[in-house]
């Protein structure tokens, strides 16, 4: 009887231990990059960057993060943004050239958020990519820059 009791205890502990050792099922940055690259379809991966932002406090402007990229004329690029399902925020990206908003995956007039934006670049130079999360929510997202084709 006691032997059976201890056997049950030991088996339970091993089972619990095994569950504890399993890695958490959260979506990692690496998984997001791979997912985002697949979403880029037939474009060739160039670069990726990860953005993690905490939620904005009430009345506060939503936090954002910037990356600067050099883009080349006569090239079509694709910017794909993938937001982690483990956080409430949905990523919004904005592409600036010379402090002027050039493109965004979020269309204000319709409220639609596109998973990617293609840019047919005609001016070589630095471009600034700003990422924030809708409604200032906490979020984790990956942006993948891909090469689509020469124009």
């Amino acid at each position: 009887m006691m032997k059976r009791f201890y056997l049950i205890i030991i088996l339970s502990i091993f089972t619990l231990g095994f569950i504890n050792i399993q890695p958490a099922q959260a979506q990692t940055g690496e998984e997001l990059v791979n997912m985002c690259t697949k979403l880029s379809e037939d474009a060739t991966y160039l670069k990726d960057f990860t953005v993690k932002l905490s939620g904005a406090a009430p009345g506060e402007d939503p936090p954002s993060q910037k990356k600067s990229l050099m883009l080349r004329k006569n090239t079509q690029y694709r910017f794909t943004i993938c937001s982690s399902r483990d956080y409430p925020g949905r990523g919004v990206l904005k592409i600036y050239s010379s402090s002027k908003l050039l493109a965004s995956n979020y269309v204000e007039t319709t409220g639609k958020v596109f998973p990617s934006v293609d840019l047919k670049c005609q001016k070589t130079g630095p471009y600034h990519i700003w990422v924030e999360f809708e409604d200032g929510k906490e979020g984790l997202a990956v942006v993948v820059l891909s090469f689509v084709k020469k124009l």
Partner: protein
Amino acid sequence: MSKMSLKHLAYVLLAFFILISCKSSSDKKSDEFAVPDSVANRGVLEISDQAMKNVTQNISSHIETAALIKSLNVPFTREHLASTSVDDYNTQFDQALLLGIYGADLGYLNMYSKTTVALDYLTSIRKLANSLNVGQFFDFNTLQRLAKNNENLDSLMYISQRNFNQMDRYLRENNRSNLSTLMVAGGWIEGLYLSGKVFENRPDPELREAIGEQKIILGDLMILLKNFEQDPDFAELIEEFERLNSLFKEVTITIQKGEPKRQVIDGRLVIEQTEKSIVTVSDELLDKIISESIEVRNRIINQ
């Protein structure tokens, strides 16, 4: 409770505590690798972490350069590429430069699907990456398998590009931004060199413009390099690049203004930029730029 029961209970509790204290980590990355003090301290120079984060990325873009060359229907030429012999490169300074150069060459090889030749470069890249303690980011076995079997070339390109990005990011985030800068510089000069060599045989107007607009990119690169100008090796490299920079200053780039056009094509948002950069460079100046870039690159390769 009997002594035997207590003993059994103790063993059970011991097993329990051992199990819950075990942590499995699938993210066995890099920080365990020892970096010699001389290298670690060398990277911590003038530029702040925040400034490095703001640095423009994608400066040496192997894929765009290779894609342009290939789009001109220029046949692949192995003789343009750097030799894969790495044994004479003993300092991390030279190794990082060469790693950048090989990154550009690998981009060219991948674009032309020259997987057999790419194998040699993968081997050399692995050696250099290991010497720089970033070998853990270079998935040599997978790349070798893909190249040998001539399979899934998209994956080959993706993994090799990704690995280079990871090496670069690791260096920047771990006080080794000097080596990251050298990789970028090496990749950039090799891209310019390849463009120049191709232009010598195929004077295409788009290639001409692509060479001329390196003026913009070199501007950013000089800022990166000058952060380390206190270092004598960097000072020498800066002098080399400054000769090129002074030539590029004579290139004229004008901007023709325009508003972007937005379309949705097959469910995808497409922005067409109508603002254009127009590059003007004389034949004589272009020849000088190409000659100088060949000299600078060859001096780096030949040390």
